[in-house]
């Protein structure tokens, strides 16, 4: 095989891997993006909420028997999807009892103190979740075992005899499901009345109140949805990626990078931001040592922030 073809194959393989990863990242970012977009809250606990989603999915699949009921492959996907409503309830409760104490209409307009309060509160929640997870779930990495994660589709040969790409089945299916969820969510916020009211509450909370929209309720709903969406992404990751209670921190950074890339406040942008992070991470391996693929993310992230602070798809984040 000629060096060119090898290069081409490597490139295509990295591109595919980037798209697969990016789709999942995109879904995670959308979850965080909804919370930030509607509430203007930097939620440090998002990664740990995702971790919790992974364990919910894991137990739904194993202990609660979805795996044996539906078979390992379908069961794993069902588990990931059912994780959504479960974590929605968790998110709503978390907002009701903690987050709402330091966020909301009054706090959103305050600089300074209110700002600090939500930062440290979500940091506290993150610490409780990840370390509490350690107590509850133990530190041994687990994963949802299906036949999909160890098998692949072969696409090709695309060029000549040899150039073909391999697509891990678990990741491929995870991508499809995450696309479906993201599209569903997109339709929800652009077409459904309640979804539109979330955007209205984000755009101008005071005017939303004049419309009779209960902004605090909208925030609670957004927090629940954001939690659920990221948790579903977690459930999907769990089908091919061994995890432990500290896994959240690996992903929360990716989520923030993605959300800022897409433009703080843009929910759709968040998906593409996550997609770009996935692509950068995988394509960087073609030119950089593997250890530096994450550094590449941060460099791209900083470049975007400096050159185009409103993000790639951003709406202006400062509400006048």
């Amino acid at each position, binding site marked *: 095989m000629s060096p060119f073809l090898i290069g081409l194959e490597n490139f295509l393989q990295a591109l595919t891997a980037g798209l697969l990863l990016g789709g999942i990242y995109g879904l995670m970012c959308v979850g965080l993006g909804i919370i930030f977009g509607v509430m203007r809250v930097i939620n440090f606990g998002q990664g740990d909420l995702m971790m919790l989603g992974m364990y919910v999915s894991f137990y739904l699949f194993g202990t609660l028997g979805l795996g044996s009921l539906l078979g390992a492959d379908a069961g794993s996907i069902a588990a990931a999807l059912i994780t959504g409503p479960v974590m929605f309830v968790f998110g709503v409760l978390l907002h009701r009892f903690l987050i709402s104490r330091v966020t909301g209409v009054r706090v959103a307009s305050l600089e300074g103190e209110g700002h600090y309060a939500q930062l440290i509160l979500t940091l506290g929640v993150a610490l409780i979740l990840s370390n509490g997870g350690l107590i509850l779930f133990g530190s041994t990495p687990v994963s949802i075992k299906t036949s999909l994660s160890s098998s692949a589709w072969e696409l090709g040969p695309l060029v000549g005899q040899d150039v073909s790409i391999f697509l891990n089945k678990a990741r491929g299916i995870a991508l499809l499901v995450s696309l479906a969820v993201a599209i569903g969510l997109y339709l929800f916020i652009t077409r459904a*009345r309640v979804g*539109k*009211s979330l*955007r*209205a509450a*984000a*755009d*101008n909370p*005071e*005017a*939303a*109140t*004049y*419309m*009779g*929209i*209960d*902004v605090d*309720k909208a925030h609670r709903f957004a927090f629940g949805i954001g939690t659920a969406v990221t948790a579903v992404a977690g459930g999907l990751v769990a089908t091919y990626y061994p995890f432990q209670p500290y896994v959240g921190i690996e992903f929360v950074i990716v989520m923030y990078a993605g959300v800022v890339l897409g433009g703080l406040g843009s929910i759709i942008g968040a998906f593409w931001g996550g997609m770009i992070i996935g692509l950068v991470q995988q394509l960087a391996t073609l030119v950089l040592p593997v250890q530096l693929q994450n550094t590449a993310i941060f460099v791209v992230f900083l470049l975007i922030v400096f050159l185009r602070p409103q993000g790639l798809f951003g*709406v202006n984040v400062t509400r006048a």
Partner: protein
Amino acid sequence: MLEIDGVHVAYGGLRALDGVSIKVGAGDFVSIVGPNGAGKTTLFKTISGVVSPSKGRILLNGKDLTSVPAAERPHLGIAHVPEGRQVFPNLTVLENLEMGAWTEAGRRDWVANLAYIEKLFPVLQERRRQLAGTLSGGQQQMVAIGRGLASSPRLLMLDEPSMGLAPTIVDQIFEAIAEIRRDKRITILLVEQRAVEALQSCDRGYVLETGRVVLEGTHDALLSDDRIRKAYLGM
């Protein structure tokens, strides 16, 4: 219908309203005029519940609103078209109007209301799919008024609809308000700095100055009173 009884409001040590009492009968068109900083916007915010009074009561059809949260009040039939328009900039024109129809009544009458609004402001029909933030000031004001109408209100509160608009647009807006008044027979409460436009179409008017009602009466009485000019221009 609406009775404001000795309302005091203070924020941050600043006395914005100092015992204001205003009565609005069902179907009335009442204008409140006064120079900047007189407390007009605060009065509106108090009625819609965003600001709480330190003293006094607000009654809507005899019901005390004090304990009704702000987000509940539109469902009682109050539509507040805020100062500076405050459209949802990242929602389309149509979506803005839909948000206006968030109330039960608004949802019920949606089709009729939308038709009415778009008849009133044909430009909104042309721009249905455009993001409201990209509209001109006058068009945004139309969206804001349309959004208020979409809730099928019994009381429509308009806060300085002329602010920052070119004179010809202002005329258009006031004509539209007069038209709403003719067509809908809803109660209208208008706050304006431009005294003439506000007073000439109202039934009764109040002049607010530094948080107090200094004059009230029918529009003829008020318009011929030179004290209004003094209130505005100091001499």
